[in-house]
């Protein structure tokens, strides 16, 4: 609804006929006019530029000198002052009001017109006056840029009727060149308003206070600030402050100097100038020219309402600046005089006094109530508490108060940043996805290196002097070289992209990551209520609080910095290409997601809506993140620090017009408009475009995109959900402020993204700069209250209430973490399935419960209420409360019923939907599902009864999946000694082998009985297969063979109890020899208990026979006994033994030993033959070696 006077061609007032040419440029004029008028009074916050896109009439015409600065079309362009020219201008403030650019003049003339009209003096000549004046302008200053003075310059002094030449050609008031030491590669994009993040020191110190320096530090421009001593700058600051003070107190300071707006853009950025301690008390009775102000407010509000302003939030910011303007005492005093003196020069000053400004602001706010009332709660609080609003418009105050009270839009901008790894998924990550083993193994290493880098960054990036490139640069490049060598880029790009989403997708999305959650101790100490307070407190410390204006340049906050720096340090073409592919794919995938899946029926409305919103938020934030990085990569090669010259630009445009865009955003944008999905698509396209290089906006393709986007701003779509629209307007407004090409046309169209998907949290998350509005108000409160003149964060310390641990909070938190953790390592499809099932079953369940239990309860409640109402005339709310309490117990049944319902239905659905292979885990999945369901029902029950219900813990499902045992004897209790223990005992602990092999201590012996026991335990151990592994068994076999060899050669100093072996006869000695018993035991263990083959042939090794050879009194009997035993137990065939013995004989033994060996051989062979004949088991006693020797 624009002012009909000015916009409706059919009814043009005759007085305005001469202005009709200007109609298209009306909005720019109006905005500029307001900025001009208020430029003196505004000292709070950064200056808000007036800026508007070009109007359609002149869309395609662009002239030669159009530069980047220029193409940031703004009303400010009419004011050509540059910061460099500042000092000069200050000197010639007086009387220079009609100076310089035409736009400015026009704007002022407009004011003039208004004044005259109001005064009844207006005539058709008023515009002519303006023109005349233009012609009369004397050269301003020799030192001003010549372009300002060139009357022949059609851009600046265009002839009437050729408005296109100059309206198109706005140049910014401010075009600061940023100096960025820490990010030389990032595009130094400045927007008008924001105090640039990395401002050149010289520019910065035109600011008024030293606090500025601190804010700069806060903003992240740390390195440059830290590295230098600030002494010199402090001096400059002092001087500058003096100047300001002087200027403010002298009448000259109030004249309208074109340069003025630039200066305070720094001065105001964070703090109040020193003199602004004296906050003028705005007084409604002191307002002058009310009528004009009202007219202006209406006009201005209409422009905002019709989306004719490029950025509504910028305008709101401006209005709030007016609302909170401090004014100075001099301004107050000199008011009337000035009005007189100014009148002749350039029209009346409507905004000379704080009273007028506030009056105007409150008027506009009143018009914009619909938007304002949808802002976040903190903002509403500040507005509702604003005393100026209260005194100027009690009705608005009242409405704001009510809006505040009913608002639920609490917003948190805390960015959690914690490194969480991307899980390994066999479908994409296992060996079959790689061309070679080498590639697979190298990628294994790369993954580990990547996380090592990430952890290093996480631990150190905030430390002073830590430099990404210096510390990580070479490691990253080495990694890139390895990737190239094995063509693993696509794998790594996918990992990189997934990790990016994992870490940076934003403060919402339901995922409580581990890093997001405070320490257990803190949680125990504080409990949940205090935890949220703690979070808010933390936010106030962590989230930058300084006022940077509502249009900050694109940035990579938090963890995004790592990924950006990684890309820059890697400098790998291959990697970038693969990453772009990966990002494009993911963007397309997410952009195509169907977010609104079903029609709402009344029953399930809130729940579905909530889920939809949550899902939408996650998808939208991921898309924005991916698009930002895609934009970064796509335009990275074209990035230049300096604006290219016109010639360079033309050739670059000609060249690049031939190339195809990496991602066809134009098509996607059109598609989204067609499908009414622009609420999803536009925000990410804006992110993508915010990173364009200097040239890109001039390419045909991107021109079209910008055009289309501009339509979004200008189109009024009644069907679109209000907050959806607000989000689109906010992001587009920001984009146009940061990055705006000219040459756009305004056809009209409409779209309808009618489903309300955006909430304040998302709005503020996507557009953190909206928080600037609140900061401005907060700084006003602080500034007017305290004497320190700065923006203070008021934090009231409170004592911790109770330090008692609150288990339930911990448990709930853990539960959520567990859920997250569970899904982390599962394929994403499982999560989708479970979520889907949970959602559907939950929804059905709620319907079911509502239809049965709740309906009944409500009926009963009704009856109860009716009775009670009859009884007494009590407070109705209280009554309701009572009734609810009464029914509470029964209401709790809903939970139980719901859980039963879900427990029954959920697993069924999940089982059908999941792939077969998952079945093993299904019962667990069910458990998780039921947890989901319980959470869902809880929500519903809560909504119905407005009460929290405790959920009793779920019983664990009894899963009987016992592992199959290998060959353990039935009834085995698995309590046999561990194999390791036995080996240990054989080897070291009980020193069997050690003592046997030597060296042994004096008198060191081995208890024979103990050794028997050991062999018994060995048998047990071998029988129980549970803890046995092949190596243990082999080692045991080897050790026992070794032991046998030592026993046979009588090397084991056995300690025999209750026996005196010397007395027994040879025969008996052998027969009762304890060693024989041990050998028998061993033989049976080898035969019966070992699963693995026992290397008994080792007994015939040179080394082991050597034990025998070393012994003076050889025990051949034992050896023979052993040989017989081996055959008997079928551990070796006699032929094998024969061949072993024969090969032994070939070794170089001492002659006597060799003789004995040969003899033994003969005995064994002959005996064996006899044994074969008799097929009798042999006995040691039957034929001793002695007898054999005698026979031979």
């Amino acid at each position: 609804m624009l002012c009909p006077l000015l916009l409706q061609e059919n009814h043009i007032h005759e007085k305005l006929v001469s202005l009709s040419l200007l109609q298209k440029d009306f909005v720019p004029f109006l905005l500029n006019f307001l900025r001009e008028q208020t430029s003196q009074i505004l000292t709070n916050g950064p200056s808000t530029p007036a800026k508007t896109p070009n109007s359609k009439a002149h869309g395609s015409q662009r002239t030669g000198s159009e530069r980047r600065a220029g193409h940031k079309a703004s009303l400010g362009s009419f004011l050509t002052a540059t910061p460099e020219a500042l000092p000069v201008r200050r000197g010639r403030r007086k009387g220079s009001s009609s100076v310089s650019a035409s736009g400015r003049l026009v704007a002022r003339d407009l004011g003039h017109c208004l004044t005259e009209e109001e005064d009844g003096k207006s005539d058709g000549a008023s515009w002519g006056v303006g023109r005349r004046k233009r012609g009369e302008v004397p050269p301003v200053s020799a030192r001003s840029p010549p372009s300002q003075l060139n009357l022949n310059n059609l851009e600046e002094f265009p002839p009437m009727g050729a408005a296109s030449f100059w309206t198109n050609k706005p140049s910014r008031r401010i075009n600061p060149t940023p100096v960025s030491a820490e990010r030389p590669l990032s595009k130094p994009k400045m927007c008008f308003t924001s105090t640039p993040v990395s401002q050149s020191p010289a520019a910065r110190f035109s600011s008024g206070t030293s606090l500025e320096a601190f804010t700069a530090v806060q903003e992240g421009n740390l390195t440059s600030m830290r590295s230098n001593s600030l002494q010199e700058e402090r001096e400059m600051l002092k001087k500058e402050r003096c100047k300001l003070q002087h200027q403010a107190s002298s009448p000259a300071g109030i004249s309208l100097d074109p340069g003025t707006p630039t200066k305070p853009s720094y001065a105001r950025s964070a703090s109040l100038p020193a003199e602004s301690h004296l906050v003028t008390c705005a007084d409604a009775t002191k307002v002058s020219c009310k009528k004009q102000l009202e007219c202006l407010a209406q006009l201005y509000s209409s422009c905002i309402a019709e989306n004719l302003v490029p950025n509504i939030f910028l305008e709101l910011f401006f209005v709030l600046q007016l609302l909170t303007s401090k004014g100075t005492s001099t301004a107050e005093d000199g008011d009337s005089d000035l009005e007189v003196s100014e009148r002749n020069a350039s029209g009346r000053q409507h905004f000379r006094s704080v009273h007028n400004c506030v009056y105007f602001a409150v008027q506009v706010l009143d018009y914009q109530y619909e938007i304002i009332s949808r802002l976040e709660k903190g903002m509403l609080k500040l507005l509702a508490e604003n005393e100026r609003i209260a005194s100027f418009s009690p009705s608005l105050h009242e409405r704001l108060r009510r809006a505040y009270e009913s608002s639920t839009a609490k917003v948190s901008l805390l960015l959690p940043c914690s490194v969480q790894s991307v899980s390994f998924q066999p479908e994409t990550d296992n060996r079959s996805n790689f061309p070679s083993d080498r590639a697979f193994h190298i990628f294994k290493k790369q993954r580990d290196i990547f996380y090592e880098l990430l952890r290093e960054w996480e631990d150190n990036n905030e430390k002073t002097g830590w430099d990404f490139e210096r510390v990580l640069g070479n490691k990253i490049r080495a990694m890139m070289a390895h990737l190239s060598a094995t063509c693993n880029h696509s794998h790594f790009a996918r990992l990189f992209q997934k990790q990016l989403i994992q870490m940076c997708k934003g403060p919402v999305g339901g995922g409580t990551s581990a890093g997001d959650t405070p320490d257990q101790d803190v949680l125990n100490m504080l409990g949940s209520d205090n935890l949220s307070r703690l979070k808010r407190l933390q936010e106030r410390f962590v989230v930058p609080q300084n006022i940077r204006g509502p249009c900050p340049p694109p940035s990579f906050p938090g963890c995004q910095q790592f990924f950006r720096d990684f890309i820059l340090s890697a400098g790998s073409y291959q990697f970038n290409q693969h990453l772009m592919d990966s990002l494009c794919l993911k963007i397309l995938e997410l952009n195509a997601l169907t977010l609104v899946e079903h029609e709402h029926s009344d029953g399930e409305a809130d729940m579905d809506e909530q889920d939809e919103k949550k899902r939408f938020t996650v998808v939208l934030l991921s898309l924005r993140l991916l698009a930002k990085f895609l934009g970064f990569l796509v335009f990275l090669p074209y990035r230049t620090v300096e604006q290219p010259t016109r010639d360079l630009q033309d050739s670059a445009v000609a060249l690049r017009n031939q190339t195809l865009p990496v991602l066809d955003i134009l098509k996607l944008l059109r598609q989204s408009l067609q499908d009414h999905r622009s609420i999803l698509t536009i925000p990410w396209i804006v992110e993508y475009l915010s990173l364009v290089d200097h040239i890109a906006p001039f390419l045909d393709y991107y021109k079209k995109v910008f055009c289309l986007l501009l339509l979004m701003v200008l189109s009024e779509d009644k069907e679109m959900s209000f907050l959806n629209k607000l989000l689109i307007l906010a992001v587009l407004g920001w984009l146009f402020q940061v990055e705006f090409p000219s040459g756009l046309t305004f056809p009209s169209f409409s779209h309808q993204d009618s489903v309300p998907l955006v909430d304040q949290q998302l709005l503020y998350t996507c557009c953190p700069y909206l928080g600037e509005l609140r900061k401005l108000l907060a700084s006003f409160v602080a500034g007017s209250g305290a004497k320190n003149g700065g923006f203070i964060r008021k934090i009231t310390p409170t004592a911790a209430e109770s330090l008692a641990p609150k288990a339930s909070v911990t448990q709930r938190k853990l539960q959520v973490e567990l859920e997250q953790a569970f899904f982390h390592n599962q394929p994403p499809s499982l999560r989708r399935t479970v979520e889907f099932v949970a959602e559907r079953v939950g929804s059905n369940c709620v319907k079911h419960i509502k239809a049965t239990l709740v309906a009944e309860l409500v009926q009963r409640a009704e009856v109860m209420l009716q009775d009670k109402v009859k009884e007494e005339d009590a407070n109705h709310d209280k009554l309701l409360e009572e009734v609810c309490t009464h029914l509470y117990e029964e209401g709790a049944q809903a939970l139980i019923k719901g859980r039963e319902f879900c427990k029954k239905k959920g697993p069924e659905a999940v089982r059908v939907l999941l792939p077969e292979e998952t079945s093993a885990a299904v019962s667990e999945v069910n458990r998780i599902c039921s947890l989901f369901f319980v959470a869902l029902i809880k929500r519903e029950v809560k909504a119905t009864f407005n009460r929290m219900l405790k959920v009793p813990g779920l019983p664990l499902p009894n899963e009987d999946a016992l592992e199959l045992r290998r060959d353990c004897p039935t009834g085995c209790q698995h309590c046999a000694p561990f194999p390791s223990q036995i080996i240990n005992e054989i080897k070291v602990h009980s020193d069997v082998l050690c003592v046997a092999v030597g060296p042994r201590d004096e008198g060191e012996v081995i208890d024979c009985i103990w050794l028997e026991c050991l062999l018994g335990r060995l048998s047990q151990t071998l029988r129980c297969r549970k803890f046995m592994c092949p190596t243990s068994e082999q080692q045991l076999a080897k050790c026992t063979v070794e032991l046998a060899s030592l026993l046979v050669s009588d090397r084991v100093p056995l300690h025999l109890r209750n026996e005196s072996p010397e007395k027994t006869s040879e025969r008996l000695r052998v027969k009762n020899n304890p060693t024989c018993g041990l050998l028998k035991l061993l033989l049976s263990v080898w035969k019966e208990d070992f699963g693995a083959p026992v290397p008994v042939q080792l007994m015939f090794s040179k080394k082991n026979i050597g034990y025998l050879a070393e012994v003076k009194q050889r025990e051949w009997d034992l050896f023979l006994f052993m040989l017989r035993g081996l055959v008997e137990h079928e551990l070796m065939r006699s032929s094998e033994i024969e061949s072993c013995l024969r090969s032994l004989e070939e070794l170089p033994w001492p002659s006597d030993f060799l003789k004995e060996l040969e003899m033994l051989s003969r005995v064994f062979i002959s005996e064996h033959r006899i044994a074969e004949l008799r097929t009798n088991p042999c006995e040691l006693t039957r034929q001793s070696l002695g007898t054999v020797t005698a026979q031979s």
Partner: protein
Amino acid sequence: MKLTKAQYDEIAQFLGHVQPTRQSLRKLKEKFPSQSQSTLLSIFSQEYQKQIKRTHTKHHTAEAVETYYQRYLNGVMKNAAAPVLLELANEVDFAPSLMARIVLERYLQEKEQAMPSKALINSMLRDPSQIPDGVLANQVYQCTVNDCCYGPLVDCIKHAIGHEHEVLLREMLLEKNLSFIAEDQLRAKGYDKTPDFILEVPVAVEGHIIHWIESKASFGDESSHQAYLQDQFWSYWNRYLNTESGTFMPIFMRRASKQHIANEVKPASM
């Protein structure tokens, strides 16, 4: 049973400079009777390994090798039955098994006129019967049997303990009805780095979420935590989420231990 950091330090200090013999171990047991044998052996082994790591190089210089070999030859010439190598090792403060390896290597080098392969040496150390020289075979065997920190027998025991604890861990998981994927299954699926068990449904232990468990079956001192963190745990974290849970014997390890070794070092309990 917990072992305090102070207790651990005391043991480590006692072990400051001991020989890896069964006699030393016996003394250790006498000194700290309240600690289990396996805990003491594990600490003993780790401490001794640290000591060896520090001095390892000086025993491998060409001169040292030559000296040892000559001393061995002289020794067995005098008395082949005497524990020449073992005594030599103890005398120069080196692990007997490693001393055996040095001398065996040198012997083979002389015999074959070429550097013997590692595989051959390992095989001979495992089964000294393969050593052509009977005397050396005996000497080597004596060394490996008497070394309680190095050598094929010790390796095998460690391996066996590791295996046994994995089995125990699996038992516990089954007992608690936890759904898990074991290492072999993970390998079959093509995972590149595999802990012993991944919990399909993570559990919370003392407020920490456990995704995977790696059984280490050894005492978790500071340096082994460090080493495992670098070699394995970070890799697991990089793949299977953010909680470490290595078990040192049945000990759960958390990320906190990255910065500071837990004030209470838990012992092996078997």
